[in-house]
C-alpha cells in the first residue's frame, strides 16, 4: 500500500524514511513521492510527525535511515552552503507565521531579499509591495507582527515565503484556528499562488474538507508509514475502513473510542480500592 503511482515528474522523493526521537519511532519506512507543480496535502492523526516530515524535507533535522531527495538532491547529505542554497528555493510557512517580531511587515517581507540579494532598495520596495498586494495586505506594511491577526500574520508570512520566487512552498497547518473568512482567503491564496507561479505546494493539515478541496494529491500518514495516497476522489472511494474513519471523522471504528482498559464492570465493582 506504500507504493505510489507516479504521474508527471517528482519534486520530492522520500525513500524508506526512518526517524526516531528518543525512544519514540516516528517514521518507520515511509515512502512517498510529491509531484511537481501540484498541491499535495499530507494528512494524518495528531502526533504522527507531519510537521517533523516538513522539517526533514527542509533539512532542519536528519533522518536516521533512508533518504529524502528534493529536486534530485539528497537533503541529508548536503553541506551547509548547499543546503542554504536549496533552502533559498523552498519557502516554508510556519503555523505561527514565524515573522520577526522586531521588524515591520514591510521589513519582514523584504528580509530575504536584503539578506540574499544586492538589489537596490527601490527594486526591493517594488517587489515587496507586489507580494503584499498579492496577499491583500499592502495596507498593513507599516504594522508590526504583534498588531496582526493570526490569519493576517500567515498571509504576510506567505508573501515573505514568495518573495524569492521559490520552486516549492511548505505549509505547516495553515488552516488551524482560522475563522471562516480568513480560511477562505488562505485556501484561495494557496490555490492561485500555486497555479500562477507554477509552484509545488506541500500542505500539512488535518482540516480534511478544506485541504481536500484544493489538493491534487493527498498522502495519508499514520503510525510512521503512508497508509494511502492518491487524488482526493480516489481516497473518498477508498475501501480501507481506517481511511473512511479518518476522512469522515467518525468517533468509533478501527481506531476505537475507548482506549484499551480492563473490563468496565469489573473495574467499577470489583477493584474499587485500586484507583
Amino acid at each position, binding site marked *: 500500500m506504500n507504493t505510489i503511482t507516479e504521474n508527471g515528474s517528482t519534486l520530492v522523493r522520500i525513500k524508506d524514511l526512518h526517524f526516531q526521537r528518543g525512544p519514540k519511532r516516528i517514521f518507520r519506512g515511509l515512502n512517498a513521492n510529491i509531484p511537481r507543480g501540484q498541491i499535495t496535502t499530507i494528512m494524518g492523526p495528531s502526533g504522527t510527525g507531519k510537521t517533523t516530515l516538513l522539517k526533514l524535507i527542509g533539512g532542519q533535522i536528519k533522518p536516521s535511515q533512508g533518504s529524502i531527495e528534493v529536486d534530485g538532491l539528497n537533503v541529508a547529505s548536503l553541506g551547509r552552503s548547499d543546503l542554504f542554497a536549496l533552502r533559498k528555493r523552498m519557502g516554508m510557512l510556519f503555523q505561527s507565521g514565524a515573522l520577526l*517580531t522586531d521588524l515591520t511587515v514591510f521589513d519582514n517581507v523584504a528580509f*530575504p531579499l536584503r539578506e540574499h540579494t544586492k538589489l537596490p532598495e527601490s527594486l526591493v520596495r517594488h517587489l515587496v509591495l507586489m507580494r503584499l498586494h498579492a496577499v491583500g495586505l499592502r495596507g498593513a506594511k507599516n504594522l508590526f507582527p504583534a498588531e496582526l491577526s493570526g490569519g493576517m500574520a500567515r498571509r504576510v508570512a506567505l508573501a*515573505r515565503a514568495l518573495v524569492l520566487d521559490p520552486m516549492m512552498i511548505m505549509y505547516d497547518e495553515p488552516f488551524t484556528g482560522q475563522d471562516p473568512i480568513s480560511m477562505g482567503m488562505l485556501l484561495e491564496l494557496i490555490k492561485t499562488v500555486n497555479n500562477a507561479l507554477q509552484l509545488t505546494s506541500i500542505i500539512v493539515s488535518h482540516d480534511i474538507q478544506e485541504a481536500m478541496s484544493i489538493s491534487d494529491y493527498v498522502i495519508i500518514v499514520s503510525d510512521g508509514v503512508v497508509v494511502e495516497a492518491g487524488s482526493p476522489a480516489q481516497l473518498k472511494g477508498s475501501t480501507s475502513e481506517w481511511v473512511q474513519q479518518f476522512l469522515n471523522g467518525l468517533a468509533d471504528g478501527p481506531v476505537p473510542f475507548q482506549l484499551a482498559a480492563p473490563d468496565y464492570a469489573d473495574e467499577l465493582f470489583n477493584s474499587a480500592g485500586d484507583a
Partner: protein
Amino acid sequence: MTNWFQRFGAAWITVFERLGRAHLFMLQMLLALPGTFRRFGLIVKQLFATGVMTLAIILVAGLFVGMVLALQGYNTLVGFGAEESLGALVALTLVRELGPVVTGLLFAGRAGSAMTAEIGLMKATEQLSGLEMMAVDPFQRVFSPRMIAGFIALPALAAMFSAVGVLGGHLVGVELLGVDAGAYWSQMQSAVGFEHDVLNGLIKSVVFGFVVCWIAIFEGADCIPTSEGVSSATTRTVVYSSLAVLGLDFLLTALMF
C-alpha cells in the same frame, strides 16, 4: 542501590552532555563572527539594548556602593587615624573587585535574563526555525551580535560603575565626613596602578562579559520552547551566570593579586 548509582550516573551524563553542547555552541558563535561583523547595524542595535539600557541601574548602583564604601571605610580607618587613605580604599575596592563583580551580577540580571527570554521566545514562536528555513544563519543574525555587544558593553559599564563609585565615595567621605579632598585624590592616585589594578579589573570584566553572554544566549537557544521552558531558562541564566561571575572572580583574583 544500583538504582541510585544509575540515577547518579545519568544525572552526570546529562550535565556533561549539556556542557558539551554549550561548548559546541560557543564554537559556532565564534565561527559566525566574520559574518556578524558584516552586519554591523545589528551589533549597534544590541549594544543599545544590552549596554545603554543597563546604564541607569549601573550608575545608580555604582553611586550607592561608592557611598557605602566610604561610610564603612571611614568608620574603620578613623580608629587608626588613617582616614586620609579613604580614597585609596574606595578606588582599589571598586576597580579591582566591586566594579567588575557587581556590574557582572547586575548585567546578568538585567541584560542576560532579557537575552535568554528574547531568544527563548524566538525559539518558541519558530522565528529561529524560520530564519534557518530562509537560509539565514541564526548564529550570524541573532546569537553572535548579542555576544559581541555584551563583550563590549560589560567592560564599559564596569568602568562607569567604578568611576561613579569613586565620586560617590568623594561625596560621602569628603563632603559629608570631612576627609581632606587633596588627601582623598592624591592617596588614590598613588595607590592605584594602571597595570596592576585598572587593567586587571578590565580583564575581569571582559571575562565576565563573555561568560554571562555565553550562558544567557545558550540558555535561550537551548530552552524547551514553551512558556514554562523559557521561564526556567531565564532563571537558570541569572543563577548560573551569577555563580560563574563569583567563582571566576575568586579564580582570577587568586591568579592576579
